[in-house]
């Protein structure tokens, strides 16, 4: 064999190996002739469909928080690897995969158990009405359900300014499946989300990948399956058995948002900046809006608010009239001035514009009341 033939063999091997990872993606995706409205219906039908697989999520929100907010900052500002077994909304398991262990959520009915390998502890608690985002919220189907809530599937025929519009995108191969593309265009001027692109499994409607865009051309949050199986997982895999020697402790409060919702002595008004309240009246925390236009008002005690104020200030927040305002992509974060006689400050955050946050803060100053 001559030298040129030997190097030709090497070049051939190189080309084959370089193309191998692309082979799966090179298979053209089969599209279906569905209108945007029909695809939206298929996606909504898929909310209860079972599935399992692995997911990679990536956030670029860059929240500058630490202490009790560290998990939230990691969730929305970093890479997250998840593994999921979803038998239905009342029976699922989501593992956050780490190089040094994993943190697992086992959900049955209204109770969720969290297992943390490295801390060697298991905690059980009821699902609260209000809580901070957690790993399971990053799954493409869960994220899609949150953002598509209230979306208009009539392809713009209703003409209402408040309704978001959907349109079709091209199909994509995702985790070996055909993903049908759908774009949600956000028309609400109060929202800081520009649009949401998603791809749903052609046969089950389960959302396989989702990209959320703020003002720029790069998605601020992406989540996609890297492997996917539409078969129903067995009950055995979603059941948590506490390891020997590990005692499951009961956690009545999940996080500070849950605590504020249950025990804060004041309650926000029924509407803020024109957005209607979506959670129960008379509770400490107010959740407002729907779909991609969401806002939450959480009352904080002064000592908690002081820690947050420092973090916002150090991250370059705008300070005006006792209010701190920070923008992390489409996510606005505002800490209001102290309102006597409550001695509480409101944390306002959501996917809304700065102007909407200021209007909401004014609404809180006027409309908050004792419980």
């Amino acid at each position, binding site marked *: 064999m001559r*030298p040129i033939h030997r190097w030709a063999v*090497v070049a051939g091997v190189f080309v084959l190996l370089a193309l191998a990872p692309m082979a799966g993606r090179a298979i053209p995706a089969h599209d279906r002739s569905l209108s945007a409205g029909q695809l939206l219906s298929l996606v909504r039908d898929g909310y209860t469909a079972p599935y399992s697989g692995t997911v990679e999520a990536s956030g670029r929100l860059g929240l500058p928080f630490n202490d009790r907010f560290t998990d939230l900052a990691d969730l929305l500002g970093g890479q997250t690897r998840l593994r999921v077994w979803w038998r239905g909304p009342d029976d699922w398991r989501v593992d956050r995969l780490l190089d*040094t262990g994993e943190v697992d959520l086992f959900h049955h009915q209204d109770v969720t158990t969290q297992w943390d390998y490295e801390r060697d502890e298991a905690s059980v608690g009821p699902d609260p009405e209000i809580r901070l985002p957690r790993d399971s919220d990053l799954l493409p189907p869960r994220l899609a359900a949150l953002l598509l809530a209230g979306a208009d599937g009539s392809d713009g025929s209703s003409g209402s300014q408040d309704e978001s519009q959907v349109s079709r995108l091209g199909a994509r191969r995702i985790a070996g499946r055909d993903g049908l593309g759908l774009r949600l265009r956000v028309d609400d001027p109060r929202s800081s989300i520009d649009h949401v692109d998603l791809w749903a499994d052609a046969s089950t409607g389960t959302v396989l990948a989702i990209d959320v865009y703020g003002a720029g051309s790069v998605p601020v949050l992406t989540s996609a399956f890297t492997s996917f199986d539409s078969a129903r997982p067995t009950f055995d895999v979603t059941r948590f*058995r506490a390891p020997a020697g590990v005692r499951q402790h009961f956690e009545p409060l999940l996080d500070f948002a849950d605590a504020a919702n249950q025990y804060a002595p004041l309650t926000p008004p029924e509407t803020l900046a024109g957005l209607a309240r979506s959670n129960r009246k008379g509770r400490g925390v107010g959740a407002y809006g729907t779909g991609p236009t969401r806002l939450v008002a959480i009352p904080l005690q002064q000592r908690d608010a002081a820690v947050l104020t420092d973090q916002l200030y150090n991250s370059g927040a705008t300070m005006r009239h006792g209010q701190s305002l920070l923008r992390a992509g489409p996510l606005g974060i505002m800490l209001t001035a102290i309102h006597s006689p409550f001695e509480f400050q409101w944390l306002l955050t959501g996917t809304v514009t700065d102007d909407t946050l200021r209007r909401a803060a004014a609404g809180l100053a006027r409309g908050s009341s004792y419980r």
Partner: protein
Amino acid sequence: MIAVELTKMLRSRRSWVTIAVIDALPILVAVLLAVTDIGPRPGTGPAFLSAVLTKGELYPLAAVAIVLPLFLPAAVAITAGDAVAGEAQQGTLRYVLVRPVGRTRLLVAKLVSVTAFVLVTLLVVAVTGLVLGVLLLGDSNSATPTTTFSGTDLTTTQLAQRTGLALAYALLSMLGVAAVALFLSTVVRTPLAAAMGTLALLIGSTLLLTLDAAHALRPYLVTRYWLSFVDLFRDPILWHDVVLGVLLQAGYVVLFLAAAWANFMTKDITD
């Protein structure tokens, strides 16, 4: 030829000094953990290290996780980089090839020798880790079984099987490094250049893995799946990245061995 290379590697004082140096770090870490009783905070440090204070039998895996990112690949790069270039630098390559030995066979023998070196190193690290884990670490009062990352119990047999699989995976992960170093060893005239070239590739790969802009390159980066052996300790076992890691290393071995063969077969041997 293979027997000759294996004997040479096993009789080499340098091989055993290198293995001892690699083994020294996990030994030091075990002693520090035993003396201070302070483990790494969750999410920090090598895999399994936070668990070894209560489960000493996991220390072989922690020891492998300690040496795998840097110490072991550096040693492989030096050993494999020396395979051909070292002979050339010492002026013995001509005499080796005078024997009725094909150049292809010589390359294969060199790769087998490096593989054996990695295997011996991993076994020494694992056995040392097990002895230290049982004697110095772990909670002797605790009778609770070892668990997977997912919290399910592992029997002693299952733990041994999964540890064996993890060691085999670590061995495979080093074969890609060995193939690159072997190729460079056929190209350059000094072992140091071959080792440095290989280390440059490894550092570049590690750096690119952290860069979002290099996302498209990730499936090809040699260090991409090195630590995926931890997925063998999830329940159910997550095979996805383990399989991709094996395929990636196989790809590196095939490509760089082919390149080493193409280069070495036509190379003028003057040293």
